[in-house]
């Protein structure tokens, strides 16, 4: 067995039967080995390495498995960088393989050599350079362990060409151990008890649920805890789907473009119970005034997140599932006190917020209408993937998801071009559900070449392009904060997305009227290939409400808010 075959053997043992990759000189031995394992493992040949990295992310986010991507040395590997960084920001387990020049040439500025260990150092959970074929299997086993356990994240593996081609002479170990890697999973019982008491005694408690609850597969446990305590639930943008958004106690997402009832509840709460989130600046606004009336319980698997941004009264380190289970058990032992006044008030505001969704009258289709139409067609297991920009925030605000891993988006990094390849990865992971991509014309064009990938591999996704001919989010900022001084945000009327789809042997439907949207979506669901829906949306619509960066939650404006600070009519 050579090093390349050892890679595939190890991948198969880890449960990986699909990879996303693009060949090149330094990974010829690796792709050669795929021919020996036909039917056992498949590589999806992408059109650009960035697509491979995002597809691996989409795969990992939709499943519970690590996604794997492969690129050659030098420019191939540097093209993975954006996807690796994106995975790092959102704690997504991917294994990124990059080819490398043979070990005897490393450091000589050889053809297509780049210091990928240095380049990926600050954007990976860990990285490895394989120095001999015998190291191949143990390194990959360690990489999977590191990527998946504790707080997940990307691991980069540098593969010098000779380590792929050379013979493996040692037995592959059954297990590997890493001395410095022992994530804390079980929460401290003292902190659990303190948290449970605080929850019982609070007058206006509120959950803030993050991506960690999705990663920890703790949605069911959360549902039980909410049923027991009747505490309203907000989620972060990344936590969308962790709690059923159709539940009467779900207030939706918080933050910059969050729902006003969720931000309002954050201002009013006296106990914020944050689980699996990292208090990003897009969630908190001004840290000094954020949840200033509240005690904060912060539970996370990464101790470094606790106290990093927000002062914490009760820290809990551990796995979200175990924490929620333990909390439920502890609270069950105590008498739950009625908090009906708070719950009633919040439900009243939620109703007001739900009903206050007038779609502004515009010449072209309003983005909100697209979201409402899609909500009608979405089945619980369908997956919604987004690009980055206004359309993404419209989706975060209006799309309702009831299950974890059914809303996939680039949160921390905000990577334009993420959506389309990520939707490919999601569809590969979940071939039996519909995968909708809500994208912008700007975002979609950044990775548009993957149309070739979906055609050649018969992967059916449904890209809905919210086409406003603008880089909408920047345009919105320029309109609101720069006196409409539009600079470098108009993309123009090109391309004709229907014709682009057809050029790739796919289908496309242009939607210009509201009445055309639902039939177009239904047609796309029926078609057996990828069908682009080019929705001509209002050019200069804004996603509101909006909170100023670093601002006070009460200063959020727009949407149904009468004025900053006026969350509800009767405040």
């Amino acid at each position, binding site marked *: 067995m050579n090093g390349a075959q050892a890679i595939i053997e190890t991948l198969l043992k880890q449960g990986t039967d699909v990879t996303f990759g693009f060949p090149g000189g330094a990974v010829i031995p690796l792709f050669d080995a795929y021919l020996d394992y036909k039917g056992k493992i498949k590589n999806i040949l992408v059109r650009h390495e960035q697509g491979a990295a995002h597809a691996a992310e989409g795969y990992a986010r939709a499943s519970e498995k690590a996604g794997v991507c492969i690129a050659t040395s030098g420019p191939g590997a540097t093209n993975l960088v954006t996807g690796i960084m994106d995975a790092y920001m959102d704690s997504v387990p991917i294994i990124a393989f990059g080819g490398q020049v043979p070990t005897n040439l490393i450091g000589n500025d050889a053809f297509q050599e780049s210091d990928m260990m*240095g380049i990926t*150092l*600050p954007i990976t*959970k860990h990285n490895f350079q394989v120095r001999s074929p015998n190291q191949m299997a143990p390194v990959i086993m360690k990489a999977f362990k590191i990527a998946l356990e504790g707080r997940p994240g990307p691991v980069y593996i540098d593969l010098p060409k000779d380590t792929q081609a050379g013979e493996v002479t040692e037995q592959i170990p059954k297990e590997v151990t890493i*001395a*410095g890697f022992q994530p804390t999973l079980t929460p401290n019982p003292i902190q659990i008890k303190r948290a449970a008491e605080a929850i019982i005694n609070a007058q206006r408690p509120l959950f803030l649920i993050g991506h960690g609850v999705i990663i920890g597969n703790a949605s069911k446990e959360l549902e039980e805890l909410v049923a027991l305590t009747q505490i309203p639930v907000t989620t972060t943008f990344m936590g969308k789907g962790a709690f059923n958004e159709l539940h009467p106690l779900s207030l939706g997402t918080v933050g910059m473009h969050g729902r006003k009832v969720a931000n309002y509840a954050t201002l009013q709460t006296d106990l914020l119970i944050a689980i699996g989130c990292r208090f990003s600046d897009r969630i908190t606004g001004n840290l000094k005034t954020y949840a200033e009336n509240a005690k904060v319980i912060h539970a996370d698997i990464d*101790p*470094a997140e606790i*106290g*990093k941004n927000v002062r914490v009264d009760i820290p809990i380190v551990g796995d979200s599932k175990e924490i929620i289970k333990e909390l439920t058990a502890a609270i069950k032992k105590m008498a739950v006190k009625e908090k009906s006044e708070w719950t009633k008030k919040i439900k009243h505001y939620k109703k007001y917020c739900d009903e206050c969704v007038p779609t502004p009258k515009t010449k072209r289709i309003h983005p909100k209408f697209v979201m409402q139409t899609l909500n009608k067609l979405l089945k619980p297991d369908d997956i919604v993937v987004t690009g980055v920009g206004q359309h993404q925030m419209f989706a975060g605000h209006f799309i309702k998801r009831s299950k974890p891993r059914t809303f996939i988006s680039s949160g921390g990094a905000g990577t334009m071009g993420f959506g389309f390849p990520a939707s490919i990865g999601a569809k590969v992971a979940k071939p039996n559900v519909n995968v909708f991509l809500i994208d912008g014309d700007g975002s979609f064009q950044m990775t548009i070449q993957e149309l070739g990938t979906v055609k050649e591999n018969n992967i059916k996704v449904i890209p809905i392009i919210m086409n406003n001919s603008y880089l909408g989010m920047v345009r919105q900022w320029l309109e609101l904060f720069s006196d409409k001084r539009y600079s470098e945000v108009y993309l123009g009327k090109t391309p004709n997305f229907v014709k682009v789809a057809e050029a790739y042997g796919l289908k496309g439907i242009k939607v210009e009227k509201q009445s055309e949207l639902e039939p177009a979506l239904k047609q796309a669901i029926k078609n057996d290939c990828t069908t682009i829906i080019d929705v001509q949306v209002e050019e200069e619509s804004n996603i509101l409400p909006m909170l100023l960066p670093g601002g006070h939650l009460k200063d959020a404006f727009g949407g149904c808010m009468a004025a900053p600070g006026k969350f509800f009519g009767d405040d």
Partner: protein
Amino acid sequence: MAKEKRHVISMLVEDQPGVLARIAGMFSRRGFNIDTITVGKTTKKGISKMVFTVIGDDAILEQVEKQVNKLIDTVKVMEMPPETSVIKELCLVKVAIPNKKAKEDILRYTKIYKTKIVDITQKSVTAELIGEPAKIDAFIELMKQFGIKEISRTGVTAVSRG
């Protein structure tokens, strides 16, 4: 505002290529102010010991410790409080000898500070001093009047008492 002070942190790390780059990179990326850093082998194969000093308040110290702990190559991290640790640094100071009188003064001071003279010429004398950073600071201050030609400090290293 919490009080800023110097903290000494000791850690055991896996002796892998690039481990220093990982740690140094994390410090600079997160804007931590690292004063000194030393690395050396331990009696355990494959494990090195690093000691570094960081300046900041308690919140910074907590983040530094947590972030260092997150690195996969880190095996153990602990703070070394001055009350319960032996903290030492080595310093070489090359001082100019402007005249005969100065030479006598320099040699007298080096004796008081219990330094070792490791090199002496007609124009300069080099003293080796081992001690706590504050003592070294004081000696350097004292030598400034004669003119310091060159100086080299190792940064602190530390072990716990008892």
